[in-house]
């Protein structure tokens, strides 16, 4: 089939997707808080499991953008970033961050409604803070919702009161305000949602929000407690809504939906693999070639280098024995390592002498042999077209540690020893109160020299071309050493910038152990030395690691190291003394535990010392999908008090990993990691070192390989 033909089928598929009728579950609307509901009130409906939604609601004085994730079928979380005008004075807006959690206590059945309990803006300054219990029941195309709200949702016509509700946030904000939950006035709310066609729906609601904040700021004066809205789903994943609020204000909302578990375009367009070559019976015993295995191994290594490169893999070494072959392969193309293993197996089956029955495929990365996958050639031949080929193959495959290292003399193919790439880059800064979205575009040059196995010299240079990252005038008021909060000063230079320049060595100290040492300019803000050790058996879901770093803070531009300003100079008045001889340096380190649960979740705990010299721990929980998608959140608590940390109280964030091959349906290992960090301050800050071991190693270990083993035969 020519490329043209395939392009046309993709177009056909795309059009069909665009016009496909939506399932009822997915046609629910979002409210202005970015969660299931209508207008400003929540409902008891949940989104389909693992769905990500993003909504922007705009009215004359407010913009609310919300990212929500259906963590489990009954638990949904959201992060909201809102702009409220005229907050500290006319023409002075404020930007507010809030987090929501909602849990479905009961699912909807024939006779009973769904019931959800929700916490709105439960960490933070509490401008939107509310709690609610709500029930929803669908009757055909009509959804009826009734609920009780506290906080903001209990402010209009309360029917009762439960205790007293503190009106201010504690300390520096950003903390769990449990003393507020379900306290204070409680008021009822209700809404009706009518799905008129599969794209159009209408809603009406009685809102229990008195909009006291908005009234106080002079945004509008409510005339009626009724809100009305109309939603139109214009594409498979986008909806536009128009709503009227309190009979006096109008607003518009755009919302988008992404489902990490389904692909935007079905299937992937990897080219067809080599078919399994079945050996003629007689030749199985033919050992005549095995007289000098070493010479022959070298000849095969040379001869197969080309075919391996053609399928996107690098052959690093091959060792032939009369009935067994060991192959060392580096995969930089396939997002799924199982697919790289399968394609390697096919190539070996086509090329190797017939007497070789067992293939040991060792996947490597950064010069580290990661795992030894053993399979039998006869099994390949038998199972190629078996109705349950994938499962049957997994059962007959062994996974073991590969600590023996690459064969003596193994080195990367000459063409890969020195690599360079010149490409555009995009750098985005979010959540700066003076400008919530800033960015730079420019050119970056990446260089890498791999002179010997495991030894890498690499550098990344950037030249900003256009952007406004340098416009930030924010000054950090942190009383801790400014290890991260002066970050915006690093964006001021418009000339070429050395982002990274390092020498690294990756090695295998022993069985189940992996090691790394990196030195140089480790990241934009720090240089120094970083050493890491990881223990991870190939078949294990658990791993332990330890990292020790010496970090030296870099100057804002150039290759120097910054004198220690933070302790000597008053950041606000500029008064004080700089001692140019004294640099800010710190020894940091962590011990880490990693666990990949049987369900989709992955947890990581790091305990140790952070860049500002503080001691503490970070817990990170992610939901991982077999296609490479990850959605998660982390929080760090250290011995820095909430007061000393400053605004936000402790470091927290949301992390999203989006694989490129999922988006475009072609093989790629590129993944985009998005970290939404509401506040970047100095407590709980870690060094940003490239190529930490766990990420390198886990993709080629049994738990991950088994999860996507269906791609072995692709």
């Amino acid at each position, binding site marked *: *089939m*020519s*490329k*043209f*033909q395939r*392009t046309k*089928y993709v*177009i*056909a598929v*795309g*059009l069909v997707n665009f016009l496909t009728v939506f399932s009822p579950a997915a046609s629910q609307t979002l409210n202005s808080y970015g969660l299931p509901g209508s207008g400003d009130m929540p409902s008891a409906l949940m989104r389909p499991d693992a769905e990500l939604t993003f909504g922007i609601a705009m*009215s*004359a004085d407010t913009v609310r953008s919300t990212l929500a994730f259906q963590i489990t079928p009954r638990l949904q979380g959201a992060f909201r970033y809102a702009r409220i*005008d005229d907050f500290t004075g006319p023409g002075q807006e404020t930007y507010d961050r809030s987090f929501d959690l909602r849990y479905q206590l009961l699912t909807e059945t024939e006779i009973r409604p769904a019931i959800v309990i929700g916490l709105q803006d439960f960490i933070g300054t509490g401008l939107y803070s509310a709690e609610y219990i709500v029930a929803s029941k669908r009757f055909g195309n009509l959804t009826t919702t009734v609920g009780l709200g506290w906080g903001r949702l209990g402010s209009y016509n309360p029917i009762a009161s439960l205790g007293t509700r503190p009106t201010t946030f504690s300390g520096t904000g950003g903390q769990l305000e449990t003393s507020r939950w379900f306290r204070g006035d409680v008021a009822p709310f209700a809404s009706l949602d009518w799905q008129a066609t599969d794209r159009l729906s209408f809603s009406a609601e009685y809102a229990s929000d008195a909009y006291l904040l908005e009234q106080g700021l002079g945004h509008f004066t409510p005339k009626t407690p009724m809100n009305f809205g109309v939603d139109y789903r214009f594409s498979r994943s986008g909806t536009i809504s128009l709503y009227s609020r309190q009979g006096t204000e109008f607003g518009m909302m755009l919302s988008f939906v992404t489902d*990490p*578990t389904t*692909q*935007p375009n*079905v*299937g*992937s*367009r990897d*080219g*067809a*693999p080599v*078919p*399994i070559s*079945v050996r003629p019976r007689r030749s199985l015993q033919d050992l005549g070639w095995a007289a000098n295995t070493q010479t022959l191994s070298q000849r095969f290594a040379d001869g197969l280098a080309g075919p391996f490169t053609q399928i*996107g893999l690098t052959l690093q070494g091959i060792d032939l024995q009369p009935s067994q072959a060991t192959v060392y392969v580096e995969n930089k193309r396939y997002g*799924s390592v199982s697919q790289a293993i399968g394609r390697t197996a096919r190539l070996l089956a086509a090329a190797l002498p017939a007497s070789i029955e067992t293939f040991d495929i060792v996947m490597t990365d950064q010069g580290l042999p990661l795992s030894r996958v053993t399979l039998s050639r006869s099994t390949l031949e038998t199972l*190629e*077209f*078996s*109705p349950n*080929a*994938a499962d049957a193959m997994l059962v007959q495959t062994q996974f073991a540690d590969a600590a023996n290292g690459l064969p003596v003399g193994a080195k990367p193919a000459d*063409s*890969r020893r020195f*690599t360079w*790439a*010149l*490409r*555009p880059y*995009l750098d985005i800064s979010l959540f700066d109160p003076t400008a919530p979205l*800033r*960015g730079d575009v420019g050119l970056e040059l990446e260089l890498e020299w791999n002179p010997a196995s495991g030894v890498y010299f690499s550098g990344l240079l950037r030249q900003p*071309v*256009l*952007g*406004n990252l340098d416009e930030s005038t924010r000054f950090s008021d942190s009383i801790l050493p400014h290890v991260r909060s002066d970050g915006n000063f690093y964006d001021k230079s418009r000339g070429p910038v050395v982002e990274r320049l390092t020498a690294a060595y990756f090695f295998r100290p022993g069985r189940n152990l992996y090691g790394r040492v990196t030195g140089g300019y480790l990241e934009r803000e720090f240089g120094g030395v970083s050493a890491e050790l990881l223990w991870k058996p190939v078949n294990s879901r658990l791993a332990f690691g330890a990292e020790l770093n010496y970090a030296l803070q870099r100057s804002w531009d150039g290759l120097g190291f910054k004198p220690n300003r933070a302790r000597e100079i008053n950041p606000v008045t500029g008064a004080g003394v700089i001692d140019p001889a004294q640099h800010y340096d710190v020894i940091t380190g962590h011990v880490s535990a990693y666990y990949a649960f049987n369900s989709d979740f992955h947890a990581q705990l790091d305990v140790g010392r952070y860049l500002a010299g503080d001691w503490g721990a970070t817990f990170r929980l992610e939901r991982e999908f*077999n*296609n490479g998608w990850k959605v998660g959140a982390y929080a760090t608590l250290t011995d820095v008090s909430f007061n000393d940390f400053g605004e936000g109280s402790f470091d927290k964030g949301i992390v999203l990993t989006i694989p*490129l091959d999922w*988006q*475009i349906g072609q093989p*790629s290992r590129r993944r985009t990691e998005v970290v939404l960090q509401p506040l970047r301050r100095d407590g709980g800050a870690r060094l940003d070192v490239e190529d930490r071991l766990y990420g390198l190693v886990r993709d080629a270990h049994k738990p991950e390989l088994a*999860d996507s083993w*269906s*791609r072995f035969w*692709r």
Partner: protein
Amino acid sequence: MVPVLEISMRSFCFAIMLGVVSFCAACSNVDQAELSAGDAFMAVLGSRVSSSATPETKPVSIDRAQFANVNAPIWVVTLEETGDLATIVQSAQNGPITTFQGADSVSVSFANGVVVATRGFGDDLMQSDMRGVVRGLQQGGGRYDKDMSYLDGQNQLETLRFQCTLVSQANEKIEILGKSHQTRRFVETCEHTDRQVTNRYWLENGKVVRSYQWISRNISPLVFEIL
């Protein structure tokens, strides 16, 4: 009316520049380089909206003479939806199953003319159980189950089980590229929940010479004709 979002001139220019710069392809000395931001952006865009890739010239018609020197069996494949043609040549044999490969990195594997797997089409038929079909064609008809498996968005295999009836319908004289064949036409009707699929097989002396087969939900049905 107060503007809802203030966009400074610089931010606007930045947004334009973002679009323009993203289109730049990366330069690199590595053959299989990772896609640049620009390539990636274009690829994502192309995969969502229609792509304006220039079409390769496709053969409008196929001439037997073109393949006079090829010794291996060849199928001519036609996409029902568009009428586009291609040829695939036998490249491997594994027991009763023969794999044919085409010029553009596609392959189709057959058991006695029945498709058991494809690769390179996108939503490929990864594995299947076609024993019922093959036996039915030998025995003049039958009722059986048929499994067809595909990869879903999470790299898991999803298997559709079809309930099928194969009926020997009529004798038919057909012509493939100037050569005529006396065939027996079979019709296979398969059902899976709310989907009904109809395949056709034309057999000459017990061998399939032409067939019309549904492969997957996202590939147009294919017509195979032996050369």
